[in-house]
């Protein structure tokens, strides 16, 4: 076989492998979804509640956000959960954020014996609200989001913490969903969900995004969760066992995407200690990003690519570390091959086939067969996500116009998916450029 033919079949094999492994993930997700449809039906029935749910601390990072800090805090205080504390961390704001919080919640200085378990920028003052007994505000020198979250974790007095930013609004019962895995299994150290609403409107674009979100933000994480190998969470919202986070060193200060790599560090630590543990993806939408701050589709893709790259780089030792479960190693290889490098290899595959066909290196018939294979397996994947969704969540989600959704599942593979791959490739390239520039600066 000629080198051109080898490259051609290599490209097809890569796409087949990527789609095939994602399909296997959907099958793995089925294990966790087996009862989801039934639970949907039973959700209307009386539930057993006893107000013995584990207490949770919500840590909210605010920085130069006088306009929204108080409203965000109020929204958190209004969440439905029996035992909830809110810690707002004002991260060295230069505007009127602190004054806005002081006015809204009648804050008074509080002489707290602040315990430093994670190093952070100095906390200058701690306040307690005279209106809400479960609200404290930490005023600290600027250090970034991760630094603020770490300060909030230091001040938290509950076994579970959840760190969020001002641009996320949570569903009223999202904390219940996140706390359930901790109630069901004492070995749970983290639970997370999605920020997508898993719904769509009448626009074609919305349907395409819905099908794509089902695949990437619901069933793929559910699959990894079923194998207890979820390395990267699709949303930044994670409920964490405080002890475990502190042991893992908290959020990484140097990173612009603070949550990147945290779940992987938790996995590695628990593996090293050979202790039983669970990191669970709850398969529910926990909330959404604020409409005003919503990113465009391309920005979302690029941010996701950045998180994946940072997560993979931070824990690359997973590849050769000895005491690692096979599921974790498999998840890491998948992350590297199909998530981090996937977009580049996918774009390169399509580009190579196009160039080879144009220059006569391969026949147009071979090109058509390549497209048939790539689009066929991609469509199979999209439809499998739709079918799984219909099987597991049909009580919860009444999907309108199923035929148009089917069309979207096919169309997703005729441009939308490739466009997302292109955006992520651009991010990959610029990340590499940034990394090289940083390396040269250090040198």
């Amino acid at each position, binding site marked *: 076989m000629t080198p051109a033919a080898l490259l051609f079949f290599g490209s097809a094999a890569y796409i087949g492998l990527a789609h095939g492994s994602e399909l296997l993930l959907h099958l793995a997700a089925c294990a966790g979804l087996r009862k989801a449809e039934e639970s949907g039906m039973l959700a209307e029935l009386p539930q057993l509640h*006893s107000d013995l749910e584990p207490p949770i601390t919500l840590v909210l990072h605010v920085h130069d956000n006088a306009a929204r800090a108080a409203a965000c805090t109020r929204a958190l205080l209004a969440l439905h959960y029996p035992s909830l504390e809110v810690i707002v961390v004002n991260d060295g704001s230069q505007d009127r954020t602190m004054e806005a919080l002081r006015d809204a919640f009648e804050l008074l200085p509080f002489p707290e014996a602040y315990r430093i378990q994670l190093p952070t920028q100095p906390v200058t003052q701690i306040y307690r609200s005279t209106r809400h007994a479960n609200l404290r505000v930490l005023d600290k020198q600027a250090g970034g989001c991760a630094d603020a979250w770490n300060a909030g974790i230091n001040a938290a007095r509950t076994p579970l913490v959840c760190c969020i930013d001002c641009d996320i609004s949570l569903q009223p019962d999202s904390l219940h969903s996140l706390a359930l895995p901790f109630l069901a299994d004492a070995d749970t150290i983290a639970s997370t969900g999605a920020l997508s609403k898993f719904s769509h409107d009448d626009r074609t674009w919305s349907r395409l995004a819905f099908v794509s979100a089902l695949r990437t933000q619901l069933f793929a994480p559910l699959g990894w969760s079923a194998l207890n190998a979820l390395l990267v969470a699709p949303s930044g919202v994670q409920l964490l066992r405080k002890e475990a986070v502190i042991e893992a060193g908290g959020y990484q200060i140097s990173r612009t995407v603070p949550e990147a790599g945290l779940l992987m560090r938790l996995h590695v630590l628990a593996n090293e200690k050979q202790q039983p543990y669970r990191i669970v993806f709850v398969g529910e939408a926990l909330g959404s990003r604020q409409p005003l701050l919503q990113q465009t589709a391309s920005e979302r893709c690029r941010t996701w690519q950045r998180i994946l790259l940072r997560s993979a780089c931070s824990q690359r030792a997973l590849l050769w570390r000895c005491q690692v479960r096979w599921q974790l190693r498999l998840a890491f290889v998948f992350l590297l091959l199909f998530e981090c490098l996937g977009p580049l290899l996918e774009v390169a595959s399509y580009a190579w086939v196009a160039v080879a066909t144009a220059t006569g290196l391969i026949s147009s018939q071979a090109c058509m067969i390549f497209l048939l294979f790539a689009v066929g397996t991609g469509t199979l994947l999209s439809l499998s996500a739709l079918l799984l969704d219909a099987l597991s969540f049909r009580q919860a989600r009444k999907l309108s116009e199923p035929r148009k959704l089917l069309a979207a599942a096919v169309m997703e593979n005729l441009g939308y998916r490739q466009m997302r791959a292109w955006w992520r490739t651009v991010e990959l390239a610029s990340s590499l450029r940034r990394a090289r520039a940083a390396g040269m600066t250090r040198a």
Partner: protein
Amino acid sequence: MHSFHTCLQVLFWLGILAFGLAMAMAAAFLYLQASSRRSSQEELVFLHAWRPLLLGSFHSAVPAALPVLERAHRLHFLKLWNRLMQDSQGEAAERLIAIAHAVACAPFCRRYLRQGNRIERLLATLTLGRLRDHIAWDDLVNQTLAADPQASLLAFHALVRIDAEIAAQQLTPLMLARKDWPVAQLASILQPAQAAFIPVMIDVLQDSRAVHIPRTLRLIEALRLSLPQASIRHVLDTADSTEALIGTLRIINDVGLLPQARAYLRHEDWRVRVQAARMLGRIGEHADVNRLIPLLADAQWWVRYRAAQALAGMPFMSRAEMELLRNNLSDRFARDMLSQVLAERKPA
């Protein structure tokens, strides 16, 4: 060249296979959507006929002639009936139970329990428990052994509803062994039936070989039960794990146990010291103030915090006395902790 064409053919057929499977999935998706729509419409028809009838039973007697419950509507009936039973008590609940008997609910629920799919089994379990159906006892006991935590816990709940005394005798070992039954949910189930379970749980605590003592203690704490002094003393004497010790200290509310429990203020495990300090906060005496003061300088933040809270919570310690104590402390950490706890207790 030959191998190139063979590979190309394989690729072609794989593509066709993928499309074929995709089409099959599309058909299954459309079928599911259609069946879901049909089922919703059926439920609407059922609700139209039965909801007013069941709601009416809240206020007035059961009608002499009830419509026939169609086979297709049985699950909808069980869903609606259980939802209404949740909010009803007394005569209203009795009337709902009478309606369930009138439509021969128990026999088909027993059949569902033995042969139904998961939804049917779960709804039947819930219903048979509410109907206090003794005939289904053995089948429900079998279901408590199921690997599925939701199904087995619901079966346990049903058995407790049917006969709490026998359930306590038969199922306490299973209840303590099933770690997948969350303590919080068990506490909810046992709340109305705690009288039946207390003696059995005390027996478990008396058996020093029992491996489930920490879980039993957590349940006792969740149910806010008070145990006889002798039982707690026995556990303290024989506890061979830190968890059992912590669990015991958490439930001590008897002043008679103070002499024995005070010794744990100096325990090497800080989690035990925390619970010992909390216990003194609940039932401590004047003499315990001097025992708690050294804990204010403990190396562990939580021990310092709970000791300060215990001191501040003692009814005979006035604010002025606490402030005096704070000002006289030489340890900075102890002073800071007392300041924090005093601030927490300051009225807003």
